[in-house]
């Protein structure tokens, strides 16, 4: 089920599901439910359900979907034998990549214990720019990490968010906000979903939000609408940056060399230029206040400027007129928006009578809020300029003084994190050793070139090239590169690729047709001749998808109603603004057929392979099953930290930390399946700089350090990489062919550049941006198997502004071609006034391969539904990935297209077409009609 993880109640009648409703006592959804949640019954009865382990039939081609059922014991012994050999020889040849699975704490632990660096979830092709851009700036981000405080906001600005991402909680919050009379502005090329009820719609060209944000920042600074006290104390805006191009420390923060760094990992000996004494002081020295503007010379002759001055210089040329030409938003509108944000933040302040103490020991009698809240998601993130765009957003939010304050942006535990967070990967290939857990995490947060995961020649260690000079801050990995890289053998070949719950042979991949070919391609010479280039492919999913057809081994997963699940504090818990919260699911119906939860598969394999964390001292298997693992596993022996934070301790009396509790599941069940620990009011705000909160977080081991987390208006982390590219960094330096790229994009201040793909695009020929949105009634690609939900979206159209359609000769409802330089698709068009004329768009992942997802070959999804992915490339000229050069985020929304009518006499059918998949053994029959009645006997 979806990642919003609302609390639900499942009502049974005679063992069958009568109805599913929202749990009224659940803090997240407060009793409401969405279309997907209320259609859970149809998920259970879908004929697409896989119910038996399957092995590709001897001699059958990958992709043909020709399988034979096998027993679980056979499946496990195949996996055990194969993986044992890989682990004994070269563990990195096993790769585990997962979709939107909500169990990254376990999958990550499994990969780490296996010893492979090749693990990630889907973040690289989803929204890593949103996570990384904000976490590297304010130490937190949207959705699971934090969000807009709409209970107290007066102005809400939503950018690039369509219909989901934080689904029910956001719907609840927006509707309450509007009822209170709050003003809601939506910046989006398309007006659907949440934007439909916005008080103002600001249509914008895709990929240009960075320019808009820089222009807003320009206005904010030019007019003095920023919150100076906030910027001076809580950001690094007052800290002095060395501005001496000849110095090897150019662009780094000036520090008091002899002073106390407090914590060498996150030093606090940066300097301010104090206004009162007109001289340098260590920042946050009592009774001092920094200049935000000016240029100064330190005693040793070093020239320095406050970071804020550099930011002001950066945005100086970025006027509203400049942005108008890029964004399509008029200069007058940009000024008006800037004024509205600035004046609302400044003049409608909230003061809460909550006393708190900051990290420097100053006592405050109140918490202040500037009630302007923002929310953003993939519309900003899924561009190859997304990281810098998201930085620009986080900086604008900071200038308005809205970070972790009432009515602005609020963190959710375990955020805020240090900038960058402490978690690190190994830094070289020696971190990967046979039969040994990985010497670090598979995913981490680099703070300098020394933290990259590269070999002595600067080449990547990971298959997806994350944390290499190509994508240094790829903090969620690059799942979209895995198949292409493994097929190329660049940087090396894999042995076994295990995919969980991700449709990489269809909608989760760019360049779908080519990726499908790669999955099916064989070695043509040498001793491996005839073997697949990706030798062994394991797919675990609950439904028969396009991806399962390519598997050598298919493992049938359970649904969310058939297993134990945890929304772990070690992963992305369901915390709210007021404190940490985690949750569990418990099974309400038995698994269908031979379905087995993927967690049980991992626990079983980890036991068989003898991973240290899953074995007793004598080498025997430690955990009976997943529920047993959840209760007894500790991050290290005796740490008292486990997957669940509630009801710890032998008798369940402890929270956050405590020894394992054998009755923990029972106690969760008795308490609505949630653990929620509201913090005292004085710990709920200003947490980046809140001493009380930091001490609590250290006590509970949510954080190791209690140092204040200053907002990085100026990113020294990025500057370290830039210095390396310029040959000035004392440590690691990029290979020459990447030096220019790193130097350009690792700008310590946000900047706008057109997405990389546009440089390789003839925009005269392909003038239109083409994007997708996910509909509220579908979760990713997974709901076309659902008989009720597919009646809402059985096929999709390309939505086109009537002006654009007219000039292209395209008519409403007619078949047309949409073509990029990479491919073309035939589909049906729908004229819409709710899209800006330079953009065409469609619903994501409605188109399906014939026969997939339990649908008949003639289903609308296969004949009229289409994927936009066929127009998108995974590789840009120069063999680099079509990704953000900083984080590796997939540039889904950067493609440019043209449209023209299908010729008379052409087939009225979607193009490209694909062969029909046969039903996999164990999947259900497709009834001609259904009439669901739960517990029929009682129902009469």
């Amino acid at each position, binding site marked *: 089920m979806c990642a919003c993880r609302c609390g639900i109640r499942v009502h049974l009648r005679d063992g069958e599901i009568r109805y599913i*409703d929202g749990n009224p006592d659940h803090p997240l959804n407060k009793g409401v439910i969405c279309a997907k949640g209320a259609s859970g019954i149809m998920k259970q009865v879908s004929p697409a359900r896989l119910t038996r382990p399957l092995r590709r039939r001897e001699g059958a081609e990958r992709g043909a979907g020709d399988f034979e059922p096998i027993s679980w014991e056979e499946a496990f012994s195949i996996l055990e034998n194969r993986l044992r050999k890989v682990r004994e020889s070269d563990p990195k040849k096993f790769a585990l990549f997962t979709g939107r699975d909500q169990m990254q704490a376990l999958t990550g632990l499994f990969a780490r214990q296996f010893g492979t660096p090749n693990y990630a979830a889907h973040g690289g092709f989803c929204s890593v720019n949103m996570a990384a851009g904000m976490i590297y700036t304010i130490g937190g981000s949207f959705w699971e990490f934090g969000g807009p405080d709409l209970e107290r906001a007066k102005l809400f600005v939503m950018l690039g968010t369509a219909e989901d991402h934080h689904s029910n909680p956001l719907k609840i919050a927006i509707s309450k906000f509007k009822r209170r009379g709050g003003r*809601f502005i939506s910046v989006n090329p398309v007006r*659907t979903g949440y934007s*439909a009820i916005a008080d103002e*719609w600001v249509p914008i060209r895709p990929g240009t939000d960075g320019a808009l944000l820089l222009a807003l920042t320009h206005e904010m600074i030019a007019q003095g609408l920023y919150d100076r006290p906030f910027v001076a104390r809580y950001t690094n805006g007052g800290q002095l940056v060395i501005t001496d191009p000849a110095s090897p420390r150019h662009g780094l923060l000036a520090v008091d060399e002899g002073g106390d760094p407090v914590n060498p990992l996150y030093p606090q000996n940066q300097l301010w230029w104090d206004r009162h004494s007109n001289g340098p002081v260590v920042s946050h020295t009592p009774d001092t206040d920094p200049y935000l503007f000016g240029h100064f010379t330190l005693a040793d002759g070093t020239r320095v400027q406050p970071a804020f001055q550099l930011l002001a210089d950066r945005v100086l040329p970025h006027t509203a007129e400049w942005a108008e030409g890029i964004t399509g938003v008029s200069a007058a509108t940009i000024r*008006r928006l800037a004024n509205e944000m600035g004046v609302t933040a400044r003049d409608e302040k909230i003061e809460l009578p909550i006393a708190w103490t900051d990290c420097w020991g100053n006592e405050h009698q109140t918490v202040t809020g500037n009630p302007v809240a923002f929310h953003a998601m993939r519309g900003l993130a899924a561009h190859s300029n997304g990281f810098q765009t998201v930085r620009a957003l986080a900086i604008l939010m900071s200038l308005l003084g809205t970070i972790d304050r009432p009515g602005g942006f609020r963190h959710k535990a375990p955020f805020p994190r240090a900038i960058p967070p402490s978690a690190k990967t190994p830094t070289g290939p020696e971190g990967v050793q046979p039969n040994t857990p990985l010497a670090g995490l598979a995913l981490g947060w680099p703070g300098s070139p020394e933290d990259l995961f590269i070999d002595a020649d600067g080449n990547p260690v990971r298959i997806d090239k994350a944390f290499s000079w190509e994508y240094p801050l790829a903090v969620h990995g690059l799942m979209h590169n895995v198949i292409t890289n493994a097929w190329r053998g660049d940087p090396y070949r894999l042995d076994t690729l295990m995919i969980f719950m991700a449709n990489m042979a269809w909608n989760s991949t760019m360049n779908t047709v080519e990726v499908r070919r790669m999955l099916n391609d064989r070695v043509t010479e040498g001793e491996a001749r005839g073997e697949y280039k990706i030798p062994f492919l394991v797919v675990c999913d609950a439904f028969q998808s396009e991806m399962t057809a390519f598997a050598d081994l298919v493992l049938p997963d359970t649904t969310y109603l058939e297993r134990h699940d945890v929304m772990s504090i070690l992963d992305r818990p369901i915390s709210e603004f007021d404190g940490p919260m985690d949750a569990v699911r418990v099974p309400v119906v038995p698994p269908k057929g031979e379905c087995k939860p993927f967690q049980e598969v991992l626990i079983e394999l980890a036991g068989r392979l003898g991973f240290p964390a899953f074995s007793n001292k004598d080498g025997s298997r430690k955990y009976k099953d997943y529920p047993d693992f959840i209760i007894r596993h500790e991050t290290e022996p005796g740490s008292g930290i486990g997957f669940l934070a509630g009801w710890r301790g032998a008798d369940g009396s402890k929270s956050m930390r405590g020894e394992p509790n054998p009755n923990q599941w029972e106690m969760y069940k008795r308490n609505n399946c949630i653990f929620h620990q509201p913090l005292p009011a004085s710990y709920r705000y200003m947490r980046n700089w809140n001493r009380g909160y930091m001490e609590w977080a250290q006590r509970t081991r949510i954080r190791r350090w209690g140092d204040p987390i200053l907002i990085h208006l100026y990113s020294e982390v990025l500057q370290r990489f830039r210095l390396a590219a310029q040959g000035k960094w004392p440590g690691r330096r990029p290979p020459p062919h990447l030096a220019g790229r790193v130097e350009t994009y690792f700008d310590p201040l946000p900047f706008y550049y057109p997405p990389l793909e546009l440089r390789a695009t003839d925009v005269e020929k392909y003038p239109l941006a083409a994007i997708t949105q996910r509909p509220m009634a579908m979760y990713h690609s997974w709901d076309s198997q659902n008989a009720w939900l597919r009646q809402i979206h059985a096929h999709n159209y390309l939505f086109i502004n009537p002006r654009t359609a007219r000039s292209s000769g395209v008519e409403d409802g007619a078949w047309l071609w949409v073509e990029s330089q990479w491919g073309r698709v035939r589909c049906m068009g729908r004229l819409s006034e*709710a*899209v800006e004329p330079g953009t065409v768009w469609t619903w994501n992942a409605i188109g399906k391969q014939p026969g997939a997802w339990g649908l*008949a070959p003639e289903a609308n999804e296969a004949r009229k539904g289409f994927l936009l992915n066929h127009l998108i490339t995974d590789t840009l000229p120069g063999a680099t990935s079509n990704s953000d050069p900083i984080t590796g985020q997939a540039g889904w929304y950067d493609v440019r297209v043209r449209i023209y009518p299908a010729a008379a006499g052409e087939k009225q059918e979607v193009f490209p077409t694909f062969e029909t998949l046969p039903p996999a053994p164990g999947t259900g029959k497709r009834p001609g009609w259904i*009439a669901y009645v739960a517990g029929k006997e009682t129902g009469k």
Partner: protein
Amino acid sequence: MTQLALVIDLNVCVGCHACVTSCKQWNTSGEAGYLSDDNPYGADPTGTFFNRVQTFEVGEFPKTETVHFPKSCLHCEDPPCVPVCPTGASYKRAEDGIVLVDYDKCIGCNYCAWACPYGAREIDEHQKVMKKCTLCVDRIYDQALPEAERKPACVMACPTSARLFGDVHDPESEVSRAIRDRGGYALMPEWGTQPANHYLPRRKAVAEIHPDELTRHDNPLKVDGQLPRPAPGEPALDDVTSW
């Protein structure tokens, strides 16, 4: 006399379809009998729903409004579907104003569907009876449910609380107050059907910043010597003139 009804707030409806499927889920196993789905996994799937969300666009770009419009039986005070029914299957309950269909009498002749100006009735192709919203009559009086849950399934589900339920004849009810205070309106009043269900219109929050609200005496640029412009150190008459 009681008249139960829904009041639907178009100001907050985001078109998520939660009301559509929660209605289907409740009623297919409920007293209204199953709600069938034809070609559930094939071409042009089509099923019986008591409630659907339609989406309209109003106005030309960029002054476009996207309106999500949930629609179900409006439980008219003077329902045209009732007198046309040849068997008396279609009826309006005296005690609460809910318009219902008695399946034992319904012959599936479709007259009522033709008479309904709102297109709110759907024939079930398998049972050959006319189906429509019952306001979850099998929920709202169910003593086995906690009182707070004795509401139609769509009302319980709606994430934006866009659906209010109550007695529109009771002037002090939540629904009557909402209609009064927020300009609630009925659909196509010219038909004289007096729909019990009402809709609340969109409302816009607007902001106007007067030029004199923009600058304040405590403009932070002054602290850093950026205001007033030109800066105090720049050339002035004071440099060259003596009186």
